């Protein structure tokens, strides 16, 4: 039997593990509520936040009205950024809870080896990360529709690009969580570490570093949380800039300096503090996720199950 057939069996087993208990939808429901209500809350105070962006020089020069640009996309990214906590926790518990409940014994005994089991978990949880991502984006979008009363919707291209970035972010957070959980081993420890980083340490350090750097790209953008937010934030900023360029009527083309300045502002508004831009952020976050996965694999290999 080929390796991929064996892997397929292990992935099927992982899906059965997930679907035969309630964790997946418990976390999913909360993720949807958080994403939806966060997007709804932010966008209901739309004017305050959007005014900052729309009042910018470039909008005036481009002769654009607020409604013509999909500013609401920043609510989408912020809702995604906060809701990624849940797929991250879901991934974190993948191995940690098996270690905690000792079901890992049977999982190891029925898999050809530990590397393949972890590979199957990686594939399975990447898929689940995407499922969470799609659900979160739909909930956040619904939140925006309700929050803005349908007045300030996001243009389809901008929405699609940001949604794709959001799904990728969820997948990578899930895998990063998976690695951290495998590394730490205890479910409680994993949840605490992930929550403390995702809710406090990450955002606060991003603010502090970005404060020192006066808003420029900085070390925050190289850390997992900053890179993840940079991935979604930059996507939103880039697509907004593209919208402005495409719709500019006030002048033949918007100067690139101005546009860049706008992108920085938009990225900040979208939550991407200290980011190095879309592709750099994606690469950095991918590298973090892979690093933790590798550490988790290494720890899993050497673990004695007694």
């Amino acid at each position, binding site marked *: *039997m080929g390796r991929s057939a*064996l892997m397929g*069996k*292990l992935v*099927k*087993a992982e899906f*059965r*593990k997930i679907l*035969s*208990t*309630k964790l997946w939808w418990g976390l999913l429901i909360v993720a949807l509520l958080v994403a939806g209500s966060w997007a709804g809350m932010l966008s209901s105070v739309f004017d305050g936040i959007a005014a900052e962006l729309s009042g910018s020089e470039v909008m005036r020069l481009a002769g654009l009205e607020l409604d013509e640009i999909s500013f609401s996309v920043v609510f989408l990214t912020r809702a995604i950024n906060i809701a990624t906590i849940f797929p991250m926790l879901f991934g974190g518990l993948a191995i940690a809870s*098996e270690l905690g*409940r*000792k*079901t*890992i*014994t*049977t*999982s*190891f*005994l*029925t*898999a*050809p*080896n*530990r590397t393949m089991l972890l590979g199957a978990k990686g594939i399975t949880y990447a898929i689940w990360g995407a499922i969470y991502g799609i659900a979160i984006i739909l909930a956040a979008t619904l939140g925006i529709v309700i929050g803005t009363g349908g007045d300030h919707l996001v243009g389809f291209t901008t929405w699609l690009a940001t949604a794709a970035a959001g799904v990728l972010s969820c997948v990578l957070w899930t895998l990063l969580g998976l690695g951290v959980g495998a590394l730490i081993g205890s479910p409680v420890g994993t949840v605490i570490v992930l929550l403390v980083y995702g809710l406090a340490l990450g955002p606060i350090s991003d603010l502090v570093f970005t404060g020192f750097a006066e808003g420029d790209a900085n070390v925050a953008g190289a850390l997992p949380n900053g890179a993840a937010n940079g991935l979604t934030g930059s996507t939103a900023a880039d697509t907004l800039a593209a919208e402005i360029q495409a719709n500019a009527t006030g002048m033949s083309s918007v100067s690139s300096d101005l546009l860049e300045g706008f992108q920085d502002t938009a990225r900040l508004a979208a939550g991407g503090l200290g980011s190095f831009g879309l592709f750099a952020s994606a690469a950095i976050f991918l590298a973090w996720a892979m690093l933790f996965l590798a550490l988790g694999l290494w720890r899993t290999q*050497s673990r*004695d*199950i*007694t």
Partner: protein
Amino acid sequence: MHDGSGRIEVRQLSKNFGSVQAVANLSFTVEPGSVTGFLGPNGAGKTTTLRMILGLVTPSEGTATINGLPHDKLGHPARVVGSVLENEGFHPKRTARNHLKVYAAAIGVPDRRVEDVLAAVGLTEAGDRHAGGFSLGMRQRLALATALLGDPQVLVLDEPANGLDPEGIAWLRTFLRDFAKQGRTVLVSSHLLAEVEQTIDQVVIISHGQTMYYGQLDDLRNAQRPRVLVLPSNQDALSTALREEQISEIEPADNGRLAVMNTSARQVGDIALRAGVAIYGLEERHADLENLFFQLTSGQYAAAAPQQYGAPHGMPYGTQPSAPYGAPPGAPYEAPPGTPYGPPPGTPYGAPPHGGYGPPQDGWSQQGTVPQPQGQQPYQQDEGNTGWEGQR
């Protein structure tokens, strides 16, 4: 590719947990077609050894192989070896049936196999209940069902009788014997020789991580000398009288009794009469394996320990001050010969009153296995074959 022999080989295996040496230079081979008992007192290193065989614990030194390969090289490990381990985990909120379906998928056997193994261990009715609500015995049955999913050639069981009711224990014993008769391999650990005495052919006895005895159980039985257990009115007077008759191998036994070697009940009775010592109990014991087991597993202390002549009433024989735990008073030494499978004292697990799960069905053999001729059948397994179906 593994050699299909069904042989478990342990070679110079050692394991240290920090400063604790759990297993020290252990070597033995478990042959197919027989049930091998793996015996040793608490903390002897049984669980650690079995987990090294199964690739769950990495040895500090040495190797453990099944079919000539370490566990992680077997390819389809669950079709080669099934196991029941101590404190094995089940997700408390997952039903027994779903638990088995998860691992049926991982192993690559069809879902109907789940029903087969549930029936085999008598859990069909309880299949849709959460494993978290199972009794110890039911969990043990579920663990056994999981072990059987891949229709393995080798079974490794760590104290499988724990928590099983007498009916379950009797069933397990028959099951293991039949399993071995088909030319498959069984390695079963226990800290009670009496518990497995009637099941096993071969025995590996370990103590403090080292092999104390390894061979046929019958050889061990034949090596055992008869002993006389006597309850005298005065231990000192009787032992003095015995020594005067050149009977000097006397040891304190439980409940104020003396164990006297190389003699007969009649001789002891006569000597006691002459010495004017009253006898309240007199019993001759042959081939008391449990006793030999004690000697083997705690004998290393016997020389150093002070003679426990006239030890406090009820001090179990063989309990040494330096042993990490004293055997519980009266057990297992007390077990009368011939009732090796009495439920462990205090085992509270009977069948649930509402009959939540039925007795194990004999269906296991009906569902899978043509009655095998007596004697050993060589085991053959084709690659990709789900196991025994090909031979049925």
